[in-house]
């Protein structure tokens, strides 16, 4: 093993997760380096979402170790609340707080968790919201926004916490096709700014353009990983080939 030049931002080792008798993650190893965008692909139920949730401490692991900047996240003695706030999680169904306005959604964590003053939190939130083109919707409530707008707010809410990395869990799956573009455009911008991202997606074309590395999960096992041209263009594993051919049949590549 060569001497690591830099510690990866995220390091997951032998992650195991079971729901009853059903093993959802079967020993997954994964590392994400600074500024890297890693895309998880795989069929529904292959464990992509579970992996993201376990990494960000929203689900308890049955085995394995997760490190963020070399610090063990899975240590039961660690302050789980503080560690969670260092991951920016964006959910498939947005999970915005319906009783709070857009601005309140975004400023909640900075104010409550990080003790930022209201003025400062709002100023920063407004800057972020304007950047994603939602400056004029700050006082609206989430249910008044379109799905694409809601998801952009959810991303801004995650970013307002100044997370070490973003975890995106199929952020476009609940969106109408014509709204997918606006969210993916935002993710691409974030990559260009150097954000470290681990994301699960079914958008293969997007994965090919934006990913530094594509990981194919099958039945809770990391089956194949590599640069997108290789994994998506010339997969080595038969299972990857099978999955991709089904995706192509469905017209998604």
């Amino acid at each position: 093993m060569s001497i690591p030049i830099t510690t990866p931002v995220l390091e997951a080792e032998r992650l195991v997760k079971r729901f009853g008798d059903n093993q959802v993650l079967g020993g997954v190893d994964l590392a994400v380096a600074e500024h890297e965008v890693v895309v998880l692909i795989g069929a529904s139920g292959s464990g992509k979402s579970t992996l993201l949730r376990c990494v960000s401490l929203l689900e308890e692991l049955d085995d394995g170790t997760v490190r963020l900047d070399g610090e063990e996240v899975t240590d039961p003695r660690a302050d789980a609340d503080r560690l969670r706030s260092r991951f920016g999680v964006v959910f498939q169904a947005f999970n915005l707080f319906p009783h709070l306005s857009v601005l309140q959604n975004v400023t909640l964590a900075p104010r409550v968790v990080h003790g930022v003053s209201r003025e400062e939190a709002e100023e920063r939130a407004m800057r972020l919201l304007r950047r994603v083109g939602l400056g004029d919707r700050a006082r609206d409530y989430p249910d008044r926004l379109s799905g694409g707008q809601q998801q952009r707010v959810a991303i801004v809410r995650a970013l307002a916490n100044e997370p070490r990395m973003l975890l995106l869990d199929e952020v476009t799956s609940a969106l109408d096709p014509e709204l997918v573009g606006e969210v993916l455009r935002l993710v691409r911008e974030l990559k260009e700014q150097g954000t470290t991202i681990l994301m699960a997606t079914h958008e293969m074309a997007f994965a090919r353009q934006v990913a530094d590395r594509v990981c194919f999960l099958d039945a809770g096992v990391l089956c194949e990983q590599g640069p997108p041209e290789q994994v998506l263009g010339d997969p080595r594993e038969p299972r990857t080939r099978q999955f991709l051919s089904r995706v192509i049949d469905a017209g998604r590549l």
Partner: protein
Amino acid sequence: MTAPAQVFPELSPAQQERLAYRRGQGRRSRLLAGTSTVVFLVVMGAVVVLSPGWDRVKEQFLDPQVAKESFPAILEGFWLNLRVLAVSAVLIVVVGLGIAAMRTLRGPVFAPLRVLATVYTDVFRGFPLIVLLYIIGFGVPGLRLQGVPTSPVVLGGLALVLTYSAYVAEVFRAGIETVHPSQRMAARSLGLTYGQSMRRVVLPQAVRRVTPPLLNDFVALQKDVGLISVLGAVDAVRAAQIEVARTYDFTPYLVAGLLFVLLAVPTVRLADWVNLRAARRQQAGGVL
């Protein structure tokens, strides 16, 4: 009866015919509803007015002179009811919320608190309010402890708070448990602690969801504050009782009862308005 039909040039004759038919049906059912309501009221009124004892009942329950004379005393008693109501309602919400939060705590460390909260709700929901009033109202002063209040108003209010906070706690708990887990997850993903996500995300949604049943309990409480009269507090009910004894006429009871109704009506309207406003603010378009 037939208003000029609004004709849209693009509607097909068949659709116009269907619309006209539905309008006709609507008019007919409204007419039917109106007629049956009037008939019902007339029959009910006739049964009461034509009953053999009507004249006596009218004299003993509906005497305008007695009503007028007893009104100031009853109103003064009612003012006491209002004050007890206001103080106990606030305490009930605070205690109820605390008990509900205790019951929803997770983790083995909090087991004693959970058990305590469960026992509290079981006991005080089961205990008949009137019995609790007697026990607290007469038992506590009987202890002759220094500094313990002996006023029937305070002790009656305490009994009300004990009983109602047990009910309200269960209403809150139901509300907390219906907030979708994805909301908790989103809050925790932002680094909020259990307590912070409870206070900022779960409870505000839970409270909104349980507003109708809570106001229902509030209306019930409005009437039950009248029960402190059994401890000797001179509230509206007690004042009416005194007037009844003085005049040998039951009209004061009716006066007191109507005051409680007058109190309940604006509460219910307020509840409707609050819910509607919250729904409008959060939802697209503003349905309902």
